């Protein structure tokens, strides 16, 4: 299937071709074709139930864990089909990490939360682990706030700190792509601003796909925006263009608040 006609300013990190997802008999996504540009922030917007979260979960095969899901079409990571028979979903999820709406630190220390992934993937050396934890917390802009209490419970952190901890945890296994599902919707404006600033820093190194209900947030943080409605990708393009001059009436109606 042909690549979609959108001018990207970087390489294609992940490519989706003719992706259709059904939960049992219920169609959730219909024939979506889209490219995710490397080291850019791609935002997925749309009303509840439009399929954007289902779409996000296709990038690291999180939908596999939901019974009765049927997926057709193709999703590639660096030109390799992630739904291929040889693909190990655990290794895929290391390369394509995820941050959720509700921060979900383990009931462990800050250190152990960040070290969790590397340990699972076989890293035992305490010095190396310590390095990974520090680097990840630095990248997640949390190090300065927690360096003197790494052994304290992660659950004692504020909501915004917990979310950055979850981002650090995702970074610790050195992913290529980070998926974020409403990462700031439960946070106050200052914690939200910190996450948004962090996203800008992370895109220097990582490819980011973010689902958000907050259109201003999509406008602020993303380079490309996809608008979903009723399981279809209605429009995909450069964020500044989509928010000033969308090509589809449905997109226009949604982003200007003329909806329902």
């Amino acid at each position, binding site marked *: 299937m042909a690549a979609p006609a959108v001018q990207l300013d970087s390489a294609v990190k992940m490519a989706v071709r003719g992706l259709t997802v059904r939960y049992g008999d219920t169609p959730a996504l219909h024939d979506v074709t889209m490219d995710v540009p490397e080291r850019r922030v791609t935002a997925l917007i749309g009303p509840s139930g439009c399929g954007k979260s289902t779409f996000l979960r296709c990038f690291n095969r999180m939908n596999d864990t939901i019974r009765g899901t049927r997926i057709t079409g193709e999703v590639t990571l660096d030109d390799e089909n992630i739904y291929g028979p040889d693909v190990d979903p655990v290794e895929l999820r290391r390369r394509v990490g995820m941050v959720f709406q509700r921060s979900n630190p383990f009931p462990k220390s800050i250190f152990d939360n960040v070290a969790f992934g590397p340990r699972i993937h076989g890293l035992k050396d305490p010095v190396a682990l310590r390095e990974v934890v520090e680097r990840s917390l630095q990248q997640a802009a949390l190090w300065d706030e927690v360096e003197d209490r790494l052994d304290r419970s992660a659950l004692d952190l504020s909501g915004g700190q917990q979310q950055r901890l979850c981002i650090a945890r995702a970074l610790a296994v050195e992913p290529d792509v980070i998926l974020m599902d409403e990462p700031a919707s439960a946070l106050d404006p200052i914690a939200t601003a910190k996450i948004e600033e962090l996203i800008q820093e992370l895109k220097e190194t990582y490819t980011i796909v973010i689902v958000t209900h907050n259109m*201003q947030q999509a406008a602020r943080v993303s380079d490309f925006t996809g608008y979903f409605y009723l399981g279809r990708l209605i429009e995909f393009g450069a964020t500044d263009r989509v928010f000033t001059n969308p090509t589809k009436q449905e997109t226009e109606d949604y982003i200007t*608040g003329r909806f329902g």
Partner: protein
Amino acid sequence: MPLHTDRGYEQQLSSLRASVLEMGGLVEDQIAQAVRALTESDATLAKTTIERDHTVNRLDVEIDELCLKILALHQPAARDLRLITTALKITTDLERIGDMAAHIAERALELDAEPPHEPKADSMIDLPLIANLARSMLHRSLDAFVREDADLALEVCRSDDAIDKLHAQLFQALLAFMVGDPTTIARTMRLLFVSKYLERVGDHATNIAEMVIFLVKGRSIRHMDVPPREL
């Protein structure tokens, strides 16, 4: 286009459109009155026209404030955002057209106070013709704004050449007249100014029309040497 889910927002956008139109209508009338004050040597009309420029200025400030309020409170996007930026720019042009009307009225008062010459420079040029061209451009640019009609707006942009040419012709005619009889210079210069003001009205109407094209199509055709043939 469907209405906004937020009715207060919808209301503010409609009232913005209405205010721009009110200002446009007022400015159109100001030009008509100023030209009439000049051609009919009506000093009273000239004075009321100058006085009314304050109302134009007040609307300019009010519309700016409304735009700022909408930007701050609603974070408009897409066409709504283009409406706000268009309103902000259009009102600047309308305010300048209002100034042109006041200037014409001022020149009318000065001409009224001066003894006329024979033969009159006034009869050498067709000021009502250039005035009608300017008013028609302004009227159609505002019409294009109300109807969100990009084709009509493009037509306005393309008619700017005609008014420029007419002004150049008037300039040549009045120059010859002044060379022939230097005692007429003071009076003739004032008429020449009026012609220039009206030509400027055409330029501002063109700016408005260009912004209407931006509003409707989301693309800028400003600062092109020649307006495009079609959109």
